């Protein structure tokens, strides 16, 4: 690991100024991704500005009926928060589907959004990778890509975004509050926060150097129910092959409104607008849920070894939507590996 300086400012603007002034500066949240990448040599900041001491630790109801979540709220605390459990079950379940209990105790809301891909080549400094070293190529496209993207990828990168939380936030119409140098502020919808790779896969998000995530804002909950389900190679503690976050409002057997997002399929949480359009006004039956999923997934361009993800995504979406439409509501997530999952191989360590 490269040597670095460390500071822990107690106010937001001092932290922002410190990173903004140093091209090699980086924020440090819980450290569960950044410290890992520093050990691997993938990240080598010269200055760490620890933001865990900043007063961004509250979950507060907003006047619009939503919630504002401070960037430092721990994943475990957010998942257990009574208002999140009651109003945004998809968010609570997505957080609980991610990582392990002890990692969630350390991981922060801001850091979770900015975690980097788990593409094996990205994490191996001995290999080329456009995301890590622009212009070196993308070995995953022809190499090991079973876990990687089927939607929105480019010739330059086929990575997926690994966050579970971000998928639920995308479905729930959440937005990211950013603060930059000179007290500038902006709010970016989560669906626009992460990027598709295009010809610049080195940029995961629209965040500019020095900008700090201060909060995530949730609008008032969508009508109906919401849920998050994740298909993976093991029953627990593994990244998603495919995940689904959905909010569905059904009245008299007809879908009144629907929000749907997929994880594990693309470089960003994939908000399924085409599926949503197909759902609204449709009968709440497995047939129409399947047709809606097809409307979205017909754009998929699977790679040699990940075509199974398309069918898995369809089946999972139908299952989640059907459980939301059922009179009793969604059941607890089934323990057990995903349909179509294979036993973990040597490289599947979470």
């Amino acid at each position, binding site marked *: 690991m490269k040597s670095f300086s460390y500071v822990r400012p107690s106010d937001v603007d001092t932290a922002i100024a410190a990173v903004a002034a140093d091209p090699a500066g980086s924020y440090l949240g819980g450290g*569960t991704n950044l410290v890992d990448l520093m050990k691997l040599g993938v990240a080598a900041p010269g200055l760490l500005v620890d933001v865990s001491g900043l007063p961004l630790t509250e979950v507060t109801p907003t006047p619009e009926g939503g919630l504002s979540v401070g960037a430092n709220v721990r994943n475990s605390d957010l998942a257990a928060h009574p208002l999140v459990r009651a109003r945004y079950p998809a968010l609570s379940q997505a957080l609980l589907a991610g990582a392990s209990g*002890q990692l969630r105790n350390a991981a922060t809301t801001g850091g979770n959004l900015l975690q980097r891909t788990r593409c094996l080549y990205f994490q191996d400094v001995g290999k080329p990778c456009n995301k890590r070293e622009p212009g070196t190529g993308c070995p995953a496209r022809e190499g090991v890509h079973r876990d990687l993207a089927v939607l929105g990828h480019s010739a330059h990168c086929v990575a997926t975004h690994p966050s579970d939380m971000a998928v639920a936030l995308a479905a729930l119409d959440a937005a990211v509050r950013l603060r930059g140098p000179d007290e500038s502020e902006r709010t970016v919808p989560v669906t626009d926060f992460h990027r598709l790779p295009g010809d610049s896969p080195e940029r995961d998000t629209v965040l500019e150097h020095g900008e700090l995530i201060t909060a995530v804002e949730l609008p008032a909950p969508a009508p109906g129910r919401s849920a998050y389900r994740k298909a993976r190679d093991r029953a627990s503690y593994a990244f998603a092959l495919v995940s689904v976050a959905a909010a569905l409002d059904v009245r008299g057997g007809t879908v009144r409104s629907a929000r749907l997002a997929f994880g594990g399929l693309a470089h960003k949480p994939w908000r399924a607008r085409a599926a949503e359009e197909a759902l609204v006004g449709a009968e709440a039956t497995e047939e129409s849920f399947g047709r809606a999923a097809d409307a979205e997934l017909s754009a998929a361009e699977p790679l040699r070894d990940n075509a199974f993800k398309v069918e898995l995504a369809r089946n999972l979406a139908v299952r989640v939507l059907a459980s939301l439409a059922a009179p009793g509501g969604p059941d607890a997530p089934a323990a057990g590996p995903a349909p179509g999952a294979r036993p973990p191989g040597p490289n599947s360590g979470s």
Partner: protein
Amino acid sequence: MWHVVPRTAQHPPAVSAVTLHVNGVRHRLTLDNRTTVLDALREHLALTGSKKGCDHGQCGACTVLMEGRRTNSCLKLAVACDGAEITTVEGLADGENPHPVQRAFLDRDGFQCGYCTPGQICSAIGVLAEAADGHPSYVTPVASEAAGQSVPPGPSEPSGAAGGTPPPVPLTPEEIRERMSGNLCRCGAYANIIAAVEDVAR
């Protein structure tokens, strides 16, 4: 190719004074900023109970309690934990009396080689506290009111409406398996580990 010379002069030093309160004892250390809590414990304080399995947050062997909550000490920089209260497996017993979770692991034979055990035990103590505080897991059934049709939100709603203290979550074997999944055991002692945690939860 030009190398950018780091402007180290404007940076504070890469070494820091760090105070850690470990098992009730205060330690003042001078550490390279790169030192993790795990390495500080093992290399600087000779507390080798916490194990290094993977050093990347994947196995849980390094799990300790920080400010009472379980965490992977291999991914925590010591400098970022200045002033923290840390409990390791060495600090659990009350004199000659093992902690109830330690006792249960012995009674149930919750190990074979023992390498993962300190992390399992610290993690289990965290699990018991989290469940007692009503924290859900991925397999916790969604409470009917929590699944409810659009909880009417609004600024007028008292903030405690969905609040109060949530009831403890019963630790069924399924709950224990899910909550302990961040602790791997290469010997496969899982069945007995679950039995041990269940004993203490009862």
